[in-house]
């Protein structure tokens, strides 16, 4: 299982990857990797802080916001995760995010991961 940092590096690499095979699939792929990174980073943080074992993502993020020393970052992370999640589902009329959005979201995740 790759670490959150590895996943974020992979996500950024996908965005920068010029392979034609990724054309049109790049953003969903990067979004999936970044979301995966956030999920495992949050799980790790909660477990390390004695609050692990959540089955509901929303509850896990509420818990994170309550416990984390930087609640603003925790809330931002929750929002970023929701956006990445939406990009990974075919649940709305929204089109996949554009590169600059993803770069911003990956940066938010980086801040959280690096703070651990």
């Amino acid at each position, binding site marked *: *299982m*790759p670490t959150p940092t590895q*996943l974020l590096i*992979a996500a950024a690499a*996908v*965005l*920068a990857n*010029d*392979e034609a*095979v990724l*054309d*049109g*699939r*790049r*953003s*969903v*792929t990067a979004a*999936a*990797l970044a979301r*995966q990174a956030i*999920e495992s980073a949050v799980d790790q943080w909660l477990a390390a802080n004695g609050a692990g074992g959540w089955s509901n993502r929303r509850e896990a993020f509420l818990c994170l916001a309550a416990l984390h020393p930087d609640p603003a970052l925790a809330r931002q992370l929750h929002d970023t995760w929701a956006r990445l999640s939406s990009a*990974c*589902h*075919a*649940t*709305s*009329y*929204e*089109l*996949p*995010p*554009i*590169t*600059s959005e993803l*770069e911003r979201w990956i940066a938010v995740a980086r801040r959280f991961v690096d703070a651990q």
Partner: protein
Amino acid sequence: MTDAASPEPHLPTLPAILARRAADAGFDDDARSLLWAAYDSDEALTRAVAGARIEPPAAAEPRAARPVWLSSIAVEGFRGIGPPAELLISAQPGLTLVVGRNGSGKSSFAEALEALLTGDNLRWRDRPRSWQDGWRNLHHDGPTVVAAELQLEGDTAPTRLERRWGASFTESTLTAGPAGTPVTAAELGWDEALTNHKPFLSYNELGSMLEQSPSTIYDSMAAVLGLDRLTEARDRLRLVRLDAEKPTKEVTRARKALLDDLTAAADSPTIGSRAAEARAALAARRPDLAQLEALAFGEATGPTDEIGGLVQALGLDPIAGQQAAAELVAARDRRALAAETDAARSGRVAALLRQALDVHQHDGDGRCPVCGAGTLDAAWRARVDTEAAALEALATDIREADTALEQARQRVLQLLVSVPAALGLDAERAMRDADPHLAELVAEARQRWQELVAPPADGWTIDQLLARLAGVEEVSALVERVRVAAGDSVASRDAEWRPLAGRLSGWVTAARAAEVSSATAARAGQVEDFLKDAEAAIRSARFQPIADQAAALWAQLRQQSNVSLARVALEGRTTSRRVELDVTVDGTATSALGVMSQGEIHALALSLFLPRVTAAESPFRFLIIDDPVQAMDPARVDGLAEVLSTIAQDHQVIVFTHDDRLPASCRRLAVEAEIVEVNRQSGSRVTARLTAGPAERAIDDARILASTQRLPESLKQQIVPIHCRRALEAQARDLIWPRLLAAGHTPARIDELLDEATTTNDLLGLLFFGRPATGPDQVYRKLDELSDGMAKRLRFLNRTVHDPPPDLNPEVLTGETKRLMRLVRDWAG
């Protein structure tokens, strides 16, 4: 587009229609010349006004631009696009949806094509400064180039148009063909069509189209009718008319001011009567310009006349008087001298002596027959001859002195002429108001003059005459004073009159010029009215099909809207012109825009836009609509998809859209559409690629990523499950719509339900049960009911998305997902 709704393809040319109507209107040569000049250009109109004859345009058929289709747009370094990117479109009727997030660069393609064709168009200049600064892509060091391949009907190969930009957006060159020959839109025959049938419409324009002033909306609707040249001609004539009316207005204004001043001057004792006369002439309905001119500069009449009369010599000459007096005195003295001798006796004696001399002549020497004492001889004869001559001279002298005296007397009497009329009582009375001092002088002079020449009671004796002559000098001096005073009076009067005279004559000059220009104004007005009528007649004939089409489009687009469009009409003239949109809300007439939602307004704008673009006269067989879907509710998006697919039967309809609603609507309604997805990577690298529906798209993504050799296995294990799940969800979404619609849900409600369904299981539950499932197990049970083991596959998929097992085979997962998708599809039928 049905044929019945399109304007007839072969309209008679405007000059042909105008020529026929001008003949019907009975235009003379001048009016005809003015008409064709106004139709032609400002320059021609200037010449026509100056008197030149302008002929109707040569009856050449307007060059019909060939129908043109679009096959590709290639963009480099423009707006959101950095390195070269190309959008391919098949050059045939059909609907193409270019889908990309805001910022993906999709609108850059639309703008690029418009910029390519229109270049430095006014539309761009109106853009905000930020746009003007951002026309060139910031990530791109290379040139800014937009090219398009256009297929002209009848050509075997497409034409490549290319525009390259220089340092600023206003510096660009349009070239055609492989050789890069410079070309203009006008040369391509698209100049007018790009305005009248502009095949581009952006979201902003949709929103603002109906927010513009009524006259602007009118103009953009009316432009499609091709009546611009009539409107231009009318504007030209209007300017000429206004210009030509100016002198008349100015003359009228000046006349009023002049009349006021003349009225004021009419009270003046000095120039009053002259002013009154000028005023009367000027106040006439049609002033006699020649008379006014004479009044301004000609001889004065009235009291000025009398005074002017005094300036002449009055016939009392003091020098002649002195001379006459001297002559009279001389004649009198000479007579007095002669009177001292006895002239009569001298005459008689002389006669006797002549008789005696005669006797001596006949009889010779002898005794005096009278006295008988004396002797008549030669000595006597010599003496008497002399004596007789002296006596005869004396007698003549006296006669002559009498004659001379009489002549001198007569001359004096001639000098003492009676008082001239100029000094008469009537003249004095006439000038009494104007110059009382002068009148007094006149009275005095008259009196003195009368005294001078009045016949004395005892008749004209020499002494009397001399006495009167002595007074001539004094009276003459008095008259000279009158003359000088009269001269002063006239001079001051002229000084007072001169400014009015100048204005009067200036006005006459201006009035003559105004007569000429008002004839021009009248003719221009006549032609202007003629054009107005012609325009109205042609407009209503040509606009009707477009209005019908707009109403039909609205009927299709409005879907569940309770607003219906009863009538579209171009109404009003000049500043009150507007597009009348008669709408009814649930059958009640109301004003259009007030009651409509933003989405409805967009739909209405689109209804008005589409007939213009698809008009038969337009060469463009493609039309580009940028983001019409924003602010539209789901039902209206369905209406839009239907409308677009109708137009796409004979046009290339290219729609840029920022989300999946319009593609989704097309899928639901089975509207055939090519979907091109635009993506933008870092460095403004933009790609545009043809895609299938989202379900096929996503499973395709999974398949390709699972089988590629170019990505590491661990990465594939992370990302392929995501694409697999998206494929299943998309499949469910596509199927939910028709099922829930059939179940009686409104599109808005379906959208709500879809919004609430955030997971794969939510979507499948909605599909299976028509409402959210009670829990994941209900969905799993249903799957197992359909086919044993399917629930297990979904569980596995859901798990791997979050936590892919290390031994996951992405290709196997893709195959399993395909089976799930087929199951769901088969269930839905």
